[in-house]
Each structure stands twice: as C-alpha cells, then as structure tokens.
C-alpha cells in the first residue's frame, strides 16, 4: 500500500542515476564567494548567526529536528513536544496518509490520461500535511498553496473539488467557508498575507480560532512572506506559518533561497520558529498543535518548518532528471512517512491485516470515485466567462456578454444557413 507506484516515478528518471555525486553536493562547491574565505571569518560583529558555519548547511540540522517517530518506525520522545494518541487516532492518521497518496496517484494518472491539464503531486509530503491538518480545529482556517491536497482531505474538502482547476474547468471555485479552507493560491507567497489578515480579523472578533498558512521553501524568498511575518508579529495575530521545505522550488534547491535553516527566519521577526521532521506525522501533529494553541492563547505567530522531500516532479509538466539525481530521491524513500507509521502500527500491533486490507479497498473506492467524478466534470459554458467578474455586476461586462452572445448566435445562424 505504502509503496504504491505513481506515474511520477517513471523509470526514465532513474536511468540517470549513474552520474557521480548529487546535485546538492555540486552546488556546495559554488557559492558566490569561495567557501575558503568563510573559514577566515572573524566574529567581527556581535549578533552573528553563529550557526552559519557553512552557508549551505541547510539540511544539516538533524539535531534540531523535532522527531517522535524515526524513519525505522520507532517511537522516540522529545523534551518539548509530546503526543499521546489512541490506536484509533493512529490508525486514522495512517488512513489519511494512505488515502491522500492514493488520491494523489490517481490525479497524476488522470493527468497522464489527459483528463487533467496538470497535477502538482504531494508525494512524500503526506505526513507534513496530515499531521498539520489533523492538528486543526473545525473553526480554524487554512490558507493553502496549490499542493495541500492532504490538508484539504483533513478539512473534509471533497477531493474532486481540488481537481477542477487542474482539469481547467475553473480556478478553484469552491466555497472557502464551507470547510474553512481557502482556495488554492498559485502566486507564490501571497496567501500568507491573506492568512495574516484573516487572523487579525479573528483576533478582532475575540474568537480563539487559529489560522494556518502553508507555503514552500521557495516561497520563503518572496517579500510577501516577510511582510506577513512583520504584520503578524506587530499585530500579534493568531497565525501559524507552516513551511513545507520539500527542498526544491521546481529546479532550485533550498540553498538558492537561504543559507541558514528556514525555521530560524522567525526569530528576527520576534516569534518562535521550529523545525520538525516533515515525514513524521506524529511530530508534525504535535508541533502544529502546540503552535496553534500558542496562537489561541494570544501569543501570536509561530513558524513551523516541516523538513520533507518532494518525491515526484514539481508538477506533471516538470522533468526533474534535468536538475537532480535519482539517488537523492532514493535516499528519501527510506524516510517515507507512510512506511514508517505502518512499521510502527504493525510492530505495536495497533493495526491488523484486516485494517490494511480494508484500507486498500477503501483506496480503490476513492480512486474510482475520483476518476469518475473527474471524467464527468463538464466543460464550462463559454458564457460563464462573464460570470462572477463582479459581485455587483458591471455595465461593461454586460455589454461584452451581450456582444459575445450575439456573435455566438450569428455564428449558429450562419451554420444554419450553410446547411
């Protein structure tokens, strides 16, 4: 189940794996200035970011990583973050991850079949999304990017809803207030400000809900994300910034965005940052829950960096063989978020064979449901181009609509005539 193949892992990619060294290793050799100079650095100033021994140590902070379940499926404790889940809850998390992966694989294959124009797979990021998603209360509010299919699942958003924009029949189109799950946002980083504003509103209303904003490692470079840190800190807004550092922004490794771990960004804005093992669903749940509680208590924002990996291509349009080697992905397969929870569930006898079998069936049902729903999605009526441009209407849109309708009608006439 956990190893179900997705189209994204097509063999052509691994054919490249004979090359020596990883992209990451190569990149280390070419910062703007020679690293040698770095060593010569004296502590010329006081408040140095002392950890920046090497500018490209972004992935070298495992000691700072909050982890509750090792890649081998062993439960470990963390001094600050603990979690105590019932067997039901544990199985629930597993189920969420498996069904999310199944949904994702189905979408990828629907794209290959031409049913979708594009798909942005979350493969590998299930723990980050299910862990954080399951930490949310119903009255909390989510501001996703375009890859938060697992979070959407946790919110109860019908999976089909997510596919409309990827099929090309709408730009999202669901009601964000139905599941407190805002529309997918494509312009990188912009939703972090919406989340902050929404959280400012929550505080104004005196509510104790929290807001969570998802964004990627690449997005961390956008000015909007920095401004959302500033606004949320100044207004002490109840928002959690959840950065899925999947180590790639399309073809660019995280070193192109930062030279220190991203979670450290928060400190300079006056709120805490924490790095969590993004492939550990328990740790993601615990850390996000704690950050949400902090927000509820009126203590303001937290940045959570979920350290994970984009197992597939950026989207179905992308070809990762151009910029990264298969070894890297293979190394991350050993840290698979689903596999490790399964190992734990099995070794602790929290789930039996019947559970896994029935989940497999459930997955198939979900896949089928999604497939059928997508295939049944009608193309929009061309006249819908003119709908919802304005809430209050517009004389201009009305004029253009009428002209277009007349044009369409005239065309129909001439077809008639032509008969």
């Amino acid at each position: 189940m956990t190893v179900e193949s997705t189209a994204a892992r097509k063999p052509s990619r691994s054919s490249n794996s004979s090359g020596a060294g990883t992209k990451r290793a190569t990149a280390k050799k070419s910062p703007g200035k020679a690293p040698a100079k770095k060593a010569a650095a004296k502590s010329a100033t006081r408040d140095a970011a002392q950890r920046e021994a090497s500018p490209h140590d972004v992935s070298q902070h495992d000691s700072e990583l909050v982890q509750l379940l090792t890649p081998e499926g062993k439960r470990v404790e963390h001094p600050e973050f603990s979690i105590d889940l019932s067997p039901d809850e544990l199985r629930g998390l597993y189920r969420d991850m498996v069904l999310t992966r199944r949904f994702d694989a189905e979408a990828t294959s629907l794209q290959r079949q031409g049913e979708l124009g594009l798909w942005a797979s979350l493969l590998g990021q299930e723990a980050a999304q299910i862990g954080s998603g399951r930490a949310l209360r119903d009255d909390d509010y989510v501001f996703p990017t375009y890859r938060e299919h697992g979070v959407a699942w946790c919110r109860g958003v019908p999976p089909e809803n997510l596919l409309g924009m990827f099929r090309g029949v709408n730009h999202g189109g669901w009601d964000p207030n139905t599941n407190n799950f805002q529309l997918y946002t494509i312009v990188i980083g912009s939703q972090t400000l919406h989340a902050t504003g929404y959280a400012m509103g929550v505080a104004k209303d005196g509510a104790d809900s929290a807001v969570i904003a998802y964004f990627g490692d690449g997005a961390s470079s956008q000015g909007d994300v920095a401004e959302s840190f500033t606004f949320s800190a100044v207004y002490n807004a109840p928002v959690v910034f959840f950065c899925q550092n999947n180590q790639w922004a399309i073809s660019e490794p995280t070193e192109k965005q930062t030279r220190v771990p991203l979670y450290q960004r928060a400190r300079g804005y006056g709120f805490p940052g924490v790095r969590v093992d993004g492939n550990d669903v328990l740790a993601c749940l615990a850390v996000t829950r704690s950050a949400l509680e902090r927000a509820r208590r009126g203590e303001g924002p937290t940045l959570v960096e979920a350290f994970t990996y984009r197992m597939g291509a950026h989207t179905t349009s992308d070809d990762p063989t151009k910029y990264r080697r298969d070894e890297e992905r293979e190394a991350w397969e050993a840290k698979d978020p689903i596999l490790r929870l399964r190992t734990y569930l099995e070794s602790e006898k929290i789930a039996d064979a019947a559970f896994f079998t029935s989940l497999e069936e459930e997955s198939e049902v979900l896949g089928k449901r999604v497939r059928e729903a997508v295939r049944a999605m009608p193309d929009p009526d061309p006249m819908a181009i003119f709908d919802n441009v304005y809430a209050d209407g517009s004389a201009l849109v009305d004029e253009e609509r009428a002209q277009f309708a007349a044009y369409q009608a005239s065309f129909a006439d001439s077809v008639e005539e032509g008969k």
Partner: protein
Amino acid sequence: MAVQKLPIAKAINESLRKALDTDPKVLIMGEDVGKLGGVFRVTDGLQKDFGEDRVIDTPLAESGIVGTAIGLALRGYRPVVEIQFDGFVFPAYDQIVTQLAKMHARALGKVKMPVVIRIPYGGGIGAVEHHSESPEALFAHVAGLKVVSPSTSNDAYWMMQQAIQSDDPVIFFEPKRRYWDKGEVDTDAIPGPLHSARTLREGSDLTLVAYGPMVKVCLEAAAAAQEEGKSLEVVDLRSMSPIDFDTVQASVERTGRLVVVHEAPVFYGSGAEIAARITERCFYHLEAPVLRVGGFHAPYPPARVEEEYLPGLDRVLDAVDRSLAY
C-alpha cells in the same frame, strides 16, 4: 444639517466617519492614518473616536496592507485602505491585480472582496517624485476592479459611501490638489449610481470629458470658450471602470465633437479607450476625431515645470479649437 459646505478632504473624512459609525465591519488601514490622520488629514480624528482596532496604523509595506485587507475581507470585514501617494501603490500591485481583483471569480462568486483602496492622486501640489502621478489606467485595464474618482465634495462623500457598500474592490482615486476645494455636501440625497457619468454643463458645439482634478479645468475652459461664443458640454466621467459610455455617447451624438482630458499620460491612457469606444458608437456623428489632452509619455516632471506638463485651460482650449477646425 443635511447640507454642509465642506472641502473634498473633509467630505471624505465625514463619509469614512459615517461608515465606521454605521457598520462595525468597516476598518480604516494604512500608513499614518491613526494619530496623524493621514498626510492629508483625510482620516483626521477617526482613530481617536473609533479606536486603534478600527483605524489601524500599519507597518510600512503596501503589499502587506492590501494583502491583509484581503484576509480581513475574507473574514467579513470591509477594509478601507489608504495608499499614501499614487506612486506608492505599486508594491501592492501584485496583491491588487492577482488576488483582490480575481478572488471573487476564482471562487465562482462564493467570496466577496469589499475592499476600498483610497489613493490621493495627480499633480499640481509641487511635490517631489512619485507624489503626483495618475495611474488609473493601470487599474482600469484589470477586470475585477472598479475605478472611480470624484470631482466635487458631494461626490466625494457619496461615492465613498457607495464604494464602501460595494461588494467589489474599488480603487478610489482622490484628486489631491482639490482636497481643499469646498463644495456643498447633501448627506441626505444620493446623487446617483457610483458608475454613472454626469453632465455638469450643457453645450452644443463640443463635449469635454474629464474626471477628478481635470473637471474643474474643463469647467473653466467651457466658461472661457463661452466668452468666445463656443458652447461646450462638460461631462464628469466619475468612473473610469466601468465607463458610462451611454452618457458620453448621448452627448457626442448631439455635439459631434469630443475632447477627453486627463492628467495621466495620453499613450495607453483612459482617453484612448474613450476615443476608441465613442468613435465606434458615434462614427457617423463625429465631425472630428476624438482628441485627447493629457500627460506626456515621460516621467512626471519636477515640480517647477509641472504647470507646463499638466493639462490646463490653454491646452484644453487648443484642443477644442483643433477639433472645431475640422
């Protein structure tokens, strides 16, 4: 006290005050809008009376201001955002164009974006760079936004009321050099829909179309022309998106001539759209091509030469003469 004589800035202030008073969801946001009351004092006294929770001094970041206003709108608020000067709206341009303008359509109508963006705009105040621009065309081209500008105190009061009540984002351009011009405000009588043009002066020889700060110039030009025996009609466009082409068309069908006047550069400006559309609608009525008077294709110049750059009485009358010469 339904009718008062107020400067435009004060009329907007009163309108904001009324909105804050009437609707607890209305918020004022921007740089220096609180204690200072804005650099033009348009929000003067509002924070004092409605508190820091309703009248919000923001960090100095325009994208952040508009971006958080979008979030507040999603939460049910109706933010009225101030951009300090025309030239400083561009850091927020991405949020305005890709998010604010499109959110309603993206959600197939399921969310609304009742956000007003107030922008003091235009020249004539002797300011340094970035403080005198007229970027309205850059917003009017974008579907999902509505773009308006009042030219009188009464319109300033009422159009602001209507903009705040609108469930769509409205870019509200305030003619900053007219802020201190006084006019009567009747707080009891709505003067008409937000997006309709208004004929301010009737005439038979030629139609002048303008909005915001140029309306006054056109009225003066019409008065001057009258002394020369020329009868000019003056239409205050009031809304640059959508445009009330019907009113302009009706006028041009009578006069046969049209001159459009705005401060913004002519090239790709609103005059182009008006000229194109009215020429299409009035092809057989036009006795002369639609002429445009506006800014040049150059950065807004230093203050000491802005009077030459800005369309004034003479340039308007020159265009009138050229039109009448056809």
